[in-house]
């Protein structure tokens, strides 16, 4: 599916030209302002990202009562931190699933690319590509292995296929070597991939050294 990655090419692709045509027509009709496109780039390129998700995770790691509220009602617990998804944020209801010694969770949307925008920003390309969507429900351990994550056979592997308006966030395990870390320090450790479930949170380099 090399064409799924047309950013490697120099010439404008079919979709690029059709998008240009559509944009020009909508502009002429007064339905779209080029400034809006710049605003989208600024907003999703800079402001909305996986930071909100990382804040939720770090709070759950440092506040046991919050962790319990988060697992009981993810939507309400996210709202406590000012993160209100709603339909626009692709997160009318949030369910948080927790990794642990006996279970690993991973999230997908096989039918389209549903994803908790309000917590994680826009999804990465691999999440939307046919390879991930087709394979992770059938051979999740093989897929995670390609991400560098070996899940032992005795660990249960739960796949969450986001087939309705419920959105899923993985609460990863807190890594060793982070005793005494502040919430802020923990936030910086949590990559997007860990909250989708295709990675663990690594130990901080200084701790591992």
């Amino acid at each position, binding site marked *: 599916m090399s064409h799924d990655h047309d950013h490697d090419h120099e010439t404008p692709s079919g979709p690029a030209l059709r998008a240009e045509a559509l944009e020009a027509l909508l502009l002429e009709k007064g339905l779209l302002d080029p400034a809006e496109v710049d605003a989208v780039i600024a907003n999703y390129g800079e402001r909305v990202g996986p930071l909100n998700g990382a804040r939720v995770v770090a709070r759950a790691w440092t506040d046991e009562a919050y962790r319990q509220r988060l697992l009981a009602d993810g939507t309400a617990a996210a709202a406590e931190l000012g993160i209100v998804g709603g339909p626009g944020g692709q997160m009318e209801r949030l369910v948080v699933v927790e990794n642990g010694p006996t279970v690993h969770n991973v999230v997908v949307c096989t039918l389209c690319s549903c994803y908790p925008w309000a917590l994680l920003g826009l999804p990465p390309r691999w999440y*939307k590509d046919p390879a991930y969507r087709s394979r992770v429900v059938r051979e999740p351990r093989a897929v995670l292995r390609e991400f560098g994550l070996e899940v032992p056979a005795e660990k249960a592997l739960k796949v969450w296929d986001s087939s309705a308006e419920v959105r899923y966030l993985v609460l990863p395990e807190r890594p060793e070597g982070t005793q005494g870390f502040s919430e802020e320090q923990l936030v910086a450790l949590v990559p997007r991939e860990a909250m989708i479930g295709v990675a663990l949170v690594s130990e901080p380099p200084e701790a591992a050294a």
Partner: protein
Amino acid sequence: MQGIHDLGGREGFGVLQVEKDEPAFHHRWEAAVFAMMFAAGRAGATGNSDRFRHAIERIDPAAYLEDSYYGRWLGGLETLFVEAGVLTREAIDERAQRLGAPLTARVASRPQAPPDPIVGYDASGCLRDLSTPPRFALGDAVQTTLASSPGHTRLPAYARGRPGRITAQHGGWVFPDTHAHGAGEQPAHLYTVAFEGRDLWGPGSEPGVVVHLDLFEPYLLPRKESP
């Protein structure tokens, strides 16, 4: 509709390609497509997200595989603008060709049915109070239906006619199968249903895998458990 979008469990769709430090958009046109979503909303062309998802599902299958995520959005948006009478397909084709697209460029969207009436969002989202009690309780054994709607549906092909178990109740939600087609919200109870990997992919599949789907009550039948 078991269309090209319904990818779960299909094989031969390549290997993962993970990009380091990926930007939110790779090209300006992708952000433009994103912004067109808002324009479609203002023009009254979107309807609702179920209708939009179905517009994407109706893209030419080869285009669906080739056009990347925002290319698929673009295909869906073309259909929405055309079906709402905002633009004509001919005008889009003509302009794209003037910009350099080849004459043979695929029309990204290919509506196969007469357009449905456009029914908009309730801004408050898709959760609905339901007076009818849920048919299934936590822990109930269920079987998914074999049938699938010829239009928009959220029961993936790989989970049709399979045995599962209710693990969560989510209350009443707008039913995508009707909502996408202008046939009303018809709210239904939503459940999370857990399927053992071996019940989806056979006894030789990966061990210890459980796949969870959020399924609407009309997709579910009671199942008698073998003793």
